[in-house]
């Protein structure tokens, strides 16, 4: 295979620097010892990380985001796993339409979803509630949960299931003891990817969140609208660190390129 020339490598270096620069600058400014936005030129300080504790709304928003991400991803999987098994195993009328419907939240702009859910939940008397946030997040993370579960279910070796059936296992036992363990890597990766999507969503959530149910991205966004100071960079640095951890785990466990491309052929 031919190598990249020097020009290509220069292009690549500049490209990578540009991709990393905004993320790096946020993390660096977070460590500034100064009281204003600046790169830490004379020493690193954790003062802005400690300051977060003085802002209970950020801490509260963090727990809301964490709970919302964990719960909505779990609920999405409860709906997505049976749907994925049906789509992977059966050829039935309406199969393609159903699959398209279940993946449609990827196509609909989140601003439209936010408006639709705001209108819907307000008329249902659930406006600004945590329950409304959960339901809305289940819809937006569903495609991610479905896609990874579907990949695992499609690549599954059915002979183990057949053996279990021939030994008398059926229904729930078959699912719990044979099918689920076999598709578990796909299910867990689906949960992790769904969690990240929920944890990061701003555009839809900003329409639904009320004081008390504000998620971390919403809290950060509203704060940035008023002013940008080192506090919001230290909060962002924490968010970046959490996502990076999830990312590395996901990469080790499943392969990041497969997760992102959604073209996973078999569940490893």
């Amino acid at each position, binding site marked *: *295979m031919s190598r*990249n020339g020097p020009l*290509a*490598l220069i*292009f*690549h270096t500049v490209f*990578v620097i540009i*991709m990393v*620069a*905004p993320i790096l*600058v*946020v993390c660096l400014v977070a460590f500034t010892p100064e009281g204003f*936005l600046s790169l830490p030129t004379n020493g690193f300080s954790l003062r802005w990380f400690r300051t977060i504790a003085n802002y209970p709304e950020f801490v509260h928003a963090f727990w809301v985001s964490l709970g919302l991400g964990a719960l909505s991803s779990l609920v999405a999987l409860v*709906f997505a796993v*049976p*749907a994925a*098994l*049906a*789509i*992977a*195993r*059966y*050829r039935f009328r309406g*199969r393609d339409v159903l699959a398209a419907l279940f993946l*449609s939240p990827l*196509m*609909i*702009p*989140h*601003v*439209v979803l936010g*408006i*639709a*859910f705001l*209108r819907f939940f307000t*008329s249902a008397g659930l406006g600004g509630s945590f329950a409304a946030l959960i339901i809305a997040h289940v*819809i937006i993370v*569903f495609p991610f949960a479905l896609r990874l579960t579907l990949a695992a279910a*499609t690549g599954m070796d059915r002979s183990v299931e057949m053996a279990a059936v021939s030994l008398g296992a059926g229904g729930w036992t078959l699912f719990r003891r044979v099918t689920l363990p076999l598709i578990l890597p796909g299910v867990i990766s689906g949960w992790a990817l769904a969690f990240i999507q929920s*944890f*990061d969503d*701003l*555009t839809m959530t*900003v*329409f639904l969140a009320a004081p008390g149910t504000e998620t971390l*991205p919403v809290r*950060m*966004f509203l704060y*940035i609208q008023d002013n*940008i100071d080192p506090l*919001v*960079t230290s909060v*962002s640095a924490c*968010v*970046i660190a959490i996502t*990076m951890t999830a*990312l590395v785990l996901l*990469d080790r466990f499943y392969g*990041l*390129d497969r997760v992102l491309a959604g073209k996973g052929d078999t569940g490893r």
Partner: protein
Amino acid sequence: MSMAAEERSTRAPWVLTAPALMLFVGVLLIPLAMTVMLSFHDWGQYKGVEPVFILKNWHEIATDPYYAEMFWRTFRIAILTTLLTALLGAPEAYILNRMSGGWKSFFLLVILGPLLISVVARTLGWALLFGGNNGLVNKLLMSLGAIRSPIPFMFTETGMVVALAHVMMPFMVLSVWAALQRLDPQIENAAMSLGAGPATIIRRIIMPQIMPGVLSGAIIVFSLSASAFATPAIIGGRRLKVAATLAYDEFLNTLNWPLGAAVATLLLVALVLIVVGSNALIERRYAEVFR
């Protein structure tokens, strides 16, 4: 898939998909239908939303030049962002694909990873880099001699396009990357052995083959940029409105929900038409690739 053909049970798949189907009908299709209906309702400063059927909001959007300008700005930013990601992302995917194993997966992680990092945090990074007239980007460009006087990035379309291109770049790289995986490296070697130079190989061999990848990446980037909210809101500030930020304003500041719903409906319809239309065009043009 061989199993699937044997099992033609008609009830089982419906029992399995019923919960998800009910969920989607109940809390996705119904709310979307309600939004479309909302766009035909009336609204007044004091009476609030009135459930009647009128075309007032649609008439206002069609006649007031403010909305035409705003939608034109939205799509102009989306087009420029798409061009920028294609011009930089496609060559980068190609370079990435030629790297050796370890480096390849490392840089793939570095470039695709930001996709999962909070958009607010990434845009905040650009706000810091742009920061006023003596921001880092301007300082760097001036010390390199690329510009004489600082370019205003904050609260401008230029800044929005740069930050959006950064946010959307992973989608383009990923899409071209996928196209490159289907490419047979032997064709490149064959061209070289027949005496083609690097420029000819790229123009005659590589470009035609990765074009479907570039175009499908462009569709994703365009539709996400046209409906982007966080980046235009933070970089554009309160004055430079795009469709998503305008809808947000109508809903949460002006409280004119019917008008906001009309803007959102128009954005959705326009995007669906553009995406479906260009998908059909690409599939017809490159039918052999999708076979």
